[in-house]
Each structure stands twice: as C-alpha cells, then as structure tokens.
C-alpha cells in the first residue's frame, strides 16, 4: 500500500517537471538535471558496494541480509519525506532512486530487521527493531563558528573562513587514526557549509551509543553553551597528549599565520575586546585594552596590527608577573580554532546523515569526498554544481576525488572484492553530457516512459 502511495507521489513530480523544460543550463540546482545525474552519473554500484561491506553474497561467511537492513531515507520534491527505505540489491536501489529522484538521500543505521518491515515486528513488542550497526559519523558546520569569523555568517562560506574546516579535518583525522586506530575514514563536503566524516571500520560500526559518546567527548573542548563567556577551559598542569599534539602541530600555526590576519582578530576594539574577555585577570585585560586604545592612531608601523597585538598579549601573559595565565594563550587559540562538532550526530547510532554524492538542494553542489591528505587544496567554491557537471567543467582533481574516496573504502573493507571498480565514468562523462544537454527534453521523455 505504502509503496503505491509513494509511486503516486513520484509520478506527480514527473508531471510537474515536464512543464518546466529549460533549454539553457541554469545555475545551481535543477530537478531535471538531477534526474539525469541519477540516471547517468551517480555511482550506484560502488555506492551500494560500499554499504555492503563485502556482504554481497559472493563470499563465504558473509551476511546476505546485511545491506537489506540498512535504512535509507529520501527527501522528495515538495518536501515529502520518506523514511525507512531498504534495498536488497543494487538494481533495486538504483531503480528506486531513478524513479523517485530524491532531492536528498540520507543514510541511517543497519537495523536488526529490515526497516521496511519494521511494523510486522513491532507487534511482538520485544523491541526487536533496533539499530545494530552504524558508521561512526561526525558533522561539522561552519555556521557554528560565527563568533570567530567576520567574513561570513550563517551558511555562507568563503576561502577566508573555510580553512577552519580544513584544520578540523586534520585534527580529527589524525586522532581517529593514531589514537583510535581507525583506518577507513571518508571525508565528504556537505555541499554547502561544512564537512561530514564517515568512519567505516567494522570496529567503528559496532560501537554502542555510550562508546560513541565517549569518542565525541574525547574530542570536545567546548563547554558551557552560549551563556558562558569563556567556552574553553583547559585544566591540569599540562595538556593531554592529543590536545598538545593538536596545538603544536596544527592550531598554533594556523591561528598565528592565517586566522589572525584573515579574520583581522585584533583590528578593532570590538574584536580584541572579545579576546581580552577570555583573560581571567581583569587588570591584565584592561591594561592591554588601554594600551591598544591609546595607540589607535599611531599604528602606521609596517608591522601588522594583529600580529603586533597578539605578540604583546602573549608576552604579557607569559611574563612571570602573572601566575597561572600562561594556559590562557592556549585557551584563546583553542577557542578560535579547535573543531566544533555537532555532538548529537555522533552520539547516537540512529542519526541520519546525508549520503556522499548527493546534490545539495540549495547550492546544487555535488557532495564530493575530500582527501584528508590534501585537504588544504580543497576549495568549496570550486566544487562543481549540477549544471557545471553537465557543461563538462569538472576539474581533474575533483573528478579524482569523486572516484578516489569510495573506491579506497571498498578496497580496504572487503579485500576479497578485487574486481576493477568502474568509476572512470565519472571522469569521462562530462564530455558525453555536453552533447546530451540540448536533447534534454527528449531524454526526459524517454526516462519517463
């Protein structure tokens, strides 16, 4: 019954599409192109192979029901939200995606039973419908950094503030590998304002909620929500090895060499006051404040005012005069640069997360994988939009990362799967598509019937 309803919805969508037939290539998101994207470009096979983790029926000892117990959820046009979809085979998934043309695909956990049949089990009352496996996931949003960036706010992002995401990737990636011993980690651009992380090791997928929360807390430095002035408080005589390493390897250099200048952190009274507020000794803070306010006009020196003031602040705090303020330098750096995680996403097995390779419905950008080893080179503003993909303007690096990310995961996860993974189509398609575009109308008719 439900399936029939869903079909009806999908057909309605088809009907609407035919009225809006464009000949020019519009920028950003466009439902017609989305249909072609799912038809020709979306890596159904590899995507499905990834989520099967080797349980594909070809290997002895594999769990054939595994992938069929995974929840997919679709957001259709008109904001119809269809949860608890499940697919036993790549063909089934591919057909459903092509037919429904979801604006967004979310991936949920693997449940104890097929989520599409959960009601049948619900009657037995023994709570048998429970999540049993799920990648360990992280979600970092640039909009959570609004108090430390002055170039943009909200969902906007530019190359001045994006590096905050880049260092978040570096810090988490290093710790997930070195501290927690995970190897199969996929970083994905969320399509608009942040990054997602999928830790796919089987050990990670089997973590219970308490263990997930423990990892999230291990990464958490921010305390106290919106209503405490000082959000980072580092206690103890020294820093934990993880924090110490993050500080010396990444945060300190980033703060002093990049953020200080790119965000002009000391350039105005309002801005430096925010930093001074983090100093617990009011006398020290007001001493610095007065000094900077006094020489406001005389700052013709060649030295950058931000760098100068930061050095002044540091030497004041480090001077033996003020006991217990040394740690404050680190606290300021952590406050401004340390990754800010959406904790809820990581703590619970049954949180949904947008699938890689989706198209962001607002920006039209492809949710491409990010290579953590070259994340400095990643520029969200050049990630191809759906329409650019069709015009063939896909840079070589993006194309590589498109095919690279998932393939690596599959290779590591199921060593038995040795066959060549045909992701090449991703790099070759744009050329073909340029030819396809003018015939788009025709093509749509074909796919509809």
């Amino acid at each position, binding site marked *: 019954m439900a399936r029939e309803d869903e079909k009806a919805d999908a057909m309605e969508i088809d009907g609407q599409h035919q009225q809006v037939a464009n000949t020019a290539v519009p920028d950003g998101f466009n439902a017609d192109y989305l249909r072609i994207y799912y038809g020709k470009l979306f890596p159904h096979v590899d995507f499905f192979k990834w989520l099967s983790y080797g349980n594909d029926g070809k290997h002895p000892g594999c769990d054939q029901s595994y992938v069929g117990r995974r929840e997919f959820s679709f*957001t259709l046009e008109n*904001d119809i*939200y269809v949860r608890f979809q499940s697919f036993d085979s790549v063909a089934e998934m591919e057909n459903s995606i092509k037919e429904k043309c979801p604006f967004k695909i979310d991936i949920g956990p693997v449940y104890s039973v097929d989520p599409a049949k959960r009601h049948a089990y619900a009657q037995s009352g*023994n709570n048998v419908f429970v999540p049993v496996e799920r990648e360990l996931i992280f979600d970092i949003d640039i909009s*959570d950094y609004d108090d430390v960036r002055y170039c943009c706010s909200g969902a906007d992002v530019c190359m001045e503030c994006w590096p905050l995401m880049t260092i978040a990737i570096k810090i988490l990636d290093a710790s997930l590998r*070195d*501290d*927690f*011993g*995970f190897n199969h980690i996929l970083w994905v651009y969320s399509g608009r304002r942040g990054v997602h992380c999928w830790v796919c090791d089987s*050990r990670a997928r089997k*973590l219970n909620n*308490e*263990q997930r*929360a*423990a*990892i999230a*807390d*291990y990464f*958490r430095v*921010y*305390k*106290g*929500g*919106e*209503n*405490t*002035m*000082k*959000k980072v408080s580092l*206690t*103890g*005589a*020294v*820093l*934990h*090895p*993880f*924090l*110490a390493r993050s500080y010396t390897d990444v945060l300190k250099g980033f703060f002093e060499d990049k953020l200080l200048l790119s965000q002009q952190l000391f350039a105005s009274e309002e801005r430096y006051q925010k930093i001074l507020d983090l100093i617990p000794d009011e006398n020290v803070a007001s001493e610095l404040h007065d000094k900077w306010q006094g020489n406001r006009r005389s700052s013709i020196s060649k030295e950058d005012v931000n760098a100068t003031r930061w050095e002044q602040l540091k030497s004041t705090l480090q001077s033996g005069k003020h006991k217990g303020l040394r740690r404050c330098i680190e606290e300021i750096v952590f406050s401004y640069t340390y990754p*800010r*995680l959406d*904790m*809820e996403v990581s703590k619970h097995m049954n949180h949904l997360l947008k699938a890689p390779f989706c198209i962001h419905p607002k920006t039209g950008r492809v949710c491409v994988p990010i290579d953590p080893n070259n994340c400095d080179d990643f520029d969200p503003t050049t990630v191809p939009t759906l329409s650019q993909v069709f015009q063939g303007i896909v840079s070589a690096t993006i194309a590589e990362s498109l095919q690279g990310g998932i393939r690596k995961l599959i290779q590591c996860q199921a060593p038995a799967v040795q066959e060549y993974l045909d992701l090449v189509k991703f790099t070759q398609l744009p050329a073909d598509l340029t030819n396809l575009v003018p015939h788009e109308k025709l093509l749509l008719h074909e796919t509809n019937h």
Partner: protein
Amino acid sequence: MEIVRSHRQIAAEAAAGVGCGGGAGGLPTYRVAPQLEVRLEEFELFAIDRLRVLKGIADGLSRGKRPEEMEKLVKELWKAHMRHQDPTETLNKDIISHFVLRLVYCRTEELRKWFLSMETTLFRYRFRLESPESQRMLMSEFQLPYKALPHSEFEAVKDKLSQVARTIGQSAAVESVFFKVPFEEVPDLVASRRVFLSKGYAYVAMSQVVSLVVTQFRCNISKALVLTNRKWTATIKEQEKDRLTPIVEALSNAYFGPDYSQPKDAVEISLKDIDQLAKTSFPLCMRHMLEKLRENHHLKHGGRMQFGLFLKGAGLKLEDALAFWRAEFSQKVGSERFDKEYAYSIRHNYGKEGKRTDYTPYSCQKIISATPGVGDHHGCPYRHFGEDNLRAALNKMGISGHPLEEIMDKVKNRHYQLACTMTFEAEHGVSCDTGINHPNQYFSESQKVLKAKNQAVQSQGTT
C-alpha cells in the same frame, strides 16, 4: 508472619544464565540469585532502603559532585541505610534489595536506564573503597583477561603516560602497573581524556582499573534487566498479581513521583498563552529557551527536546506545538524546511512517529547533567550559565538584593535545584517545601499558587 517462598524462585529466574559468583570482600557482583528466604515486609523495606541510597546518589550526581565527594557521599549513604552490625546481614540485605529493585526497575527503558546508572555508580564507589586485595579478587571474578603491560612496552610510552597523569593532577611519577585494553572497554576514561590512547588501545593505570570492572558490571546488569523484564511480563506479573506485583508497582511510583509525561486532564495550555505563562510560571531554564527561540527563531536539537517536551508536559497539544515551532522556525529556515526537517521530531516527541513511545519531559537531574555545546541554549541556567549571565537573568525576573545573593550562594555550592527552589519562593512569595526537581513541577506548583491567589482576590471582590 508470612514467608515469601516464591521469592527465591523469582530471583533465581531473574538471574538465570548470568553465571555464578559470590562476592569478594563485602561487595557482591549480583551474578547469582540469593538462596534466601525473605519476609514480605523485608522485601519491601530492604528495597526502600536501597532506593534511599540510589536516590541520594542521583541527587549527588545532579549537583555535579566531584568523584572524591561522591565517594564520601556513597560511604555515608551506605552506612545510614544499609549497614548492619552483622556483616552477613548486611550482605543479605544488599543482595535481596538489589534483586527486588531489579524487578521494580526492569519494566521500561526509562526505569532500566535510571537503575542501571545508579547501581553502576554505587558499585563504582564501593569498589574504590575496597582493599587492593579484594579489588584484585573482583577483577578475577569478572574474568578480565588483561595482563599488565610488559616492561619494554611500558618504557616506550612512559612519557605519554606521565603527561596524562599530570593532566589529571597526579604527580609525574608514573604508576608502574598498566593494562593495555581496547578503548571501547573504558568509555568513561576516554570521554574525560584520563587515559593515553594509541592505535585503538587505552593505557589504564592500576588505580583506574575500576573503570574496566564497572564496564563489565554494567554490561552484566544491563543484560540481566532485559531478561528480568521478559520474565516479568511473561510470568511473574500475573503469578504474583495479588502479592508482589502491587508492591513492585508501588515502589517505582513511590520514588519517581508524579509522571509528567501526560498532562493532568484538566490542564491544557494554548498557543496564545505561552508568553504570559512563561512570565509567571516557567522556570528559568524554559524562560531562557523561549526567549532565545523568539530572538533567533531557532533552537538546536538539545533545546528542542528539553523545551518541546516541557511544553508537552505543561499541556500543549500536538497541533499547537507544531504551529508554535513552525511560527518561529519558518522565519529562519522557511516553512518548507521546517516541515521537512523539524516537524518529524516534534511529532516524534508526541509519540506520533517512529517508535511511537511517548517521550517523558526531562527532570532537573537530567537537564543539569546535560553538556550544552556551541550555540546551545538548553541545560540548567544555575549550572550552565556564567555568574554574570545568571545574575542578569535573575535580575530580569525581578530578583535582586538579599534573595539574589542567597541564590548565588547556593549556586556556588552547586545546589542548583535549591537555587531554583529559592527563585520560585522569591518569585511567588510562598515557600516550596518539596523542592524543585522537575521543570513541569515548577510550572504546575506555580499555577496552583497563582490560582489560589486569584480566587482569594475574587472572593474578596464579591464579599
């Protein structure tokens, strides 16, 4: 005096499949059911005494007590309610009361969670009080397969271990016995960064071994509770409907107080009254969230849960709740996105989606132990606000001078619920003897007071 013969059997069944093992020293692991005869009154009395201990622990946790303070508290609670001159008696009472409460608290997810977390905390601090010898005995009883770190490996990571020790205020001289265990086994140590981690292993000092034992303990009790629940619904409840079932049901209600998940029939609040009610009757945590919601047209997940469930408990109907959240959120994210991304979870809170279980409004204890992050407005202001922000917020409620200082004093001593109770008293001009332990209780007590005042005014007017 009646002898409860069947109890032996019940408890035995409840623990079936969990294996055997008595207790090292005075600390039992509850893996085996007691082979004891229990009088019906003892069945109840023992359980009530243990509940007093668990409730005391819950209070301690909600005040954010530090581990050393918790250790002291547990010691005192145990002495006051459980200790007997005769150690055998103490042990019997310990075991019997634990198994009775298993029956009481096995019946819903919420009850199980509470019981599990309090029993685990109790066990943790009792373990810390044991002698090293009996600690080692307990370790072997749990069959923990860990060997101490060999010297060569120890030398290789010694510096890091000392670094971690110094972060938690210990001297740099490293303990000499460490265990290398999968990090999954010591989630509490990982969460608070009290261990060195490398390649998936946590290096646990002998003095931290309690975490390993507690993980095992927790896991055993958790499994046993699920099993007991099955037995309870399948057989015990019916078999014992004239004898034990009423006691068991009374016991869980006796402690938890009124259930705020369903508003009392008569009470219902409507959309247009929310702002007015907030001014007169919401506790500070909820006022703050309403204010932020009106200001930002958005609240993050933790806030939506805490505030949304509170409104439900206060009597806001689902339809109104949807309208309420939509009116704010649509200004920020548009109504489309609201319907798509947020409406679901609101219906979920009302049990209309997903598991269809009703979500219970959060208690103060739960709210106080929350850990709000960037952009979050949930939590308890008394606990989570900085001093200046809290003063300003209380000022805004019209509280100043002496009462304000008294409240701040309570906050400094981490008596958050007391601070909230005093706020209530200052605001309403009446005393609140029960103390505040639930935001919905704050609300309904406040409404009661205001109604009484209204009636007094009216009757004065008519005479």
